[in-house]
């Protein structure tokens, strides 16, 4: 059914169609609309039997999900930003225990300075936690990935994070195709846990494991994620046969034929990148796009194959490995058969800084011309940075950086690019 709706509402409807049994939520922008919508559905009895629990923190949200999942219930929660960090210990724990929880991360920057807008710092900080991480390009894909996520999680007995850009997707009204309950039921079988807390068959879960077995437990987590690299494309095919559209999979490629320059990115910025690439193609530039849908497990082969013909790669990412450069670009460089010198990192859109076609044209043209630096910060205000550095040279007590910058800039609320 086609519907004009908000991204968060679409995701809530998708989760509802997956017949969740325990939903726990602690509010944080920009995740709130998702759990509000689910809370209303539970209150109205539309999801019965389903429990909706308002917890006291994100740490509790993930902990309640752990208990529910271990007791055999299909468990869901959603968070963002500081919330993801606050639950980090339980995030690792859910993966270590092999519990198939599904969580939406409405991607948002991490403070300080506090910032509610979109980038990928939150999800990428948890890239090695053992969860599968899927990134949605648009609201239709966000909706579809949740349905795939429950199936993936429960088949592998591993938790899955569905990442969607905060505000840009969560709060955007778009047309989406909502599947029917029959379609989702045909795709997603009831949850059959591999381990469950059952008085009729008591097991201990979460025992102390020493050096004699810890490596093997960790290896199996890795092996299962690598196994997912085969399951994900197969299930995306099955998804197409039931739902009639392409969604999910490991990667999306766009105009890669004969591309000498390939731009790699995650999430909603792929739309702007594709528009820019279309315009450059019209002018004869051989440029294409590789979108990463599945960030964990990292699709090594798919990325290597997609970049096989590329003479240079531009990784545009909304994250920063402070003191190094790119996070995504390091993963890409490891999968690129050419020289890693040819993999350029463009850090863009941190804390919600708009990524415009104008700026993308400039940076992609520099890449094509061979003049792009190894690491570039898109649209960085160098004058402001210089002023801070000069102040720090002149004054010992130079004051708080963020507040000084705001004072230097004056009122610029409308500045987007």
């Amino acid at each position: 059914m086609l519907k004009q709706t908000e991204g968060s509402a679409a995701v809530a409807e998708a989760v509802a169609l997956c017949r969740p049994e325990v939903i726990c939520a602690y509010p944080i922008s920009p995740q709130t609309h998702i759990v509000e919508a689910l809370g209303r559905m539970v209150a109205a009895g539309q999801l019965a039997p389903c429990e909706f629990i308002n917890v006291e923190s994100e740490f509790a949200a993930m902990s309640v999900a752990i208990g529910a999942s271990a007791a055999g219930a299909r468990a869901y929660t959603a968070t963002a930003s500081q919330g993801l960090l606050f639950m980090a210990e339980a995030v690792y724990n859910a993966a270590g225990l092999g519990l198939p929880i599904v969580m939406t991360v409405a991607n948002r920057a991490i403070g300080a300075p506090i910032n509610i807008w979109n980038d990928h710092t939150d999800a990428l900080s948890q890239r090695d936690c053992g969860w599968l991480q899927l990134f949605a390009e648009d609201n239709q894909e966000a909706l579809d990935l949740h349905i795939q996520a429950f199936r993936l999680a429960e088949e592998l007995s591993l938790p899955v994070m569905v990442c969607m850009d905060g505000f840009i997707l969560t709060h955007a009204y778009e047309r989406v195709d909502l599947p029917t309950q029959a379609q989702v039921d045909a795709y997603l079988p009831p949850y059959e846990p591999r381990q469950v807390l059952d008085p009729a068959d008591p097991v201990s879960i979460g025992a102390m494991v020493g050096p004699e077995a810890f490596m093997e437990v960790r290896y199996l987590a890795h092996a299962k994620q690598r196994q997912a690299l085969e399951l994900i494309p197969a299930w995306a095919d099955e998804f197409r046969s039931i739902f009639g559209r392409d969604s999910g999979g490991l990667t999306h490629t766009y105009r890669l034929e004969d591309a000498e320059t390939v731009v790699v990115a995650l999430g909603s910025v792929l739309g702007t990148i594709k528009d820019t690439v279309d315009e450059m193609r019209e002018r004869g530039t051989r440029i294409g796009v590789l979108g990463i849908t599945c960030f964990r497990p990292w699709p090594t082969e798919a990325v290597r194959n997609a970049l096989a013909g590329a003479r240079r790669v531009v990784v545009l990412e909304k994250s920063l490995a402070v003191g190094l450069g790119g996070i995504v670009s390091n993963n890409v460089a490891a999968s690129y058969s050419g020289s890693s010198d040819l993999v350029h990192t463009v850090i863009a859109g941190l804390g919600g800084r708009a990524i415009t076609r104008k700026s993308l044209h400039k940076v992609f043209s520099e890449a094509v011309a061979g003049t792009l630096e190894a690491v570039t910060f898109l649209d960085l205000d160098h004058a402001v940075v210089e002023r801070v550095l000069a102040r720090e040279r002149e004054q010992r007590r130079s004051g708080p950086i963020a507040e000084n910058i705001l004072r230097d800039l004056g009122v610029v609320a409308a500045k987007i690019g």
Partner: protein
Amino acid sequence: MTYQPIRFYQTGTFTVGNRLLPDEQRSVQANMRRTNSLNSGHRACQGCGEALGARYAIDAAMEATHKQLVAANATGCLEVFSTPYPETSWQIPWIHSLFGNAAAVGTGIAAAMRVKGRHDVRVVAQGGDGGTTDIGFGCLSGMFERNDDVLYICYDNGGYMNTGIQRSSATPPAARTNTTMPIGDSPGAAFGQGKNVPAIAIAHEIPYVATATVAELRDLETKVRRAMEFRGARYIHILVPCPLGWGHGSADTIRMARLAKETGLFPVIEAEHGTVTGVSKIKRKVPVEEYLRPQQRFAHLFRDPPRRDVIDHIQQLADRNILRYRLLDNVERRA
């Protein structure tokens, strides 16, 4: 089963004999068919109060729930000594997730059971005092205020014993731990600090709160059974002496627990829906010195010259408890 005071005490110890009682009034531990939920073979220290408390409490909970019980366990001694991979002492479905989230994991299990229509399955969450009064306190308070259907049991040995005896918010004043060393004029753990979690639990107005010690088996079992008669959040705080951390003989665990109660330092009470409904009276008032002296963690109070000021201060705390909870008033019979 209604509680009936039993008056056949073994001379000097107040230990209750079972042999003169009818079957239905005997303790769960005296029953050959008890579940041994925390089975023998675990790695607890000799004389461990926590191992004893957990076995008493969980066996009683198993009996009360007709063996339909699931447990969530915080990180700590109990978790470590009961499940050295690949062995486990637990004869019940049991999960350990993290140090600070046992109450929330319990909430999740209870929610799952409700969704599955398993209203017969009950949930216990348990941890030591560190996992309860400190790092797990947020999740515990959340579970209380939502009135989630979980019985939380805190085994209080007054410190972080698993990590090598450090101070927790349940460490009593003047106790020596490795982070409250009595150096110079310092008495050890400071006075005027610490958290009275049973009182805080009562303030949440949850259906049932009780304290108990491992010295009074029948009282402890009765409270677990009583707790299982309620739905919603329940809390039992059990004093479990730790021979290692307290520095007393491993044969003296029960004696230490009894002295903690008989001095008034550890009030044994119960409360329903925010109101104290029962108090276990002191049978023979004991000066705090009798409780402090056998414990190495208080040895610095009894050097030459002794820290009379500190001992007096501790006595004042005991006397305040006695007044506050009327621990010495005439023993009233409970219905």
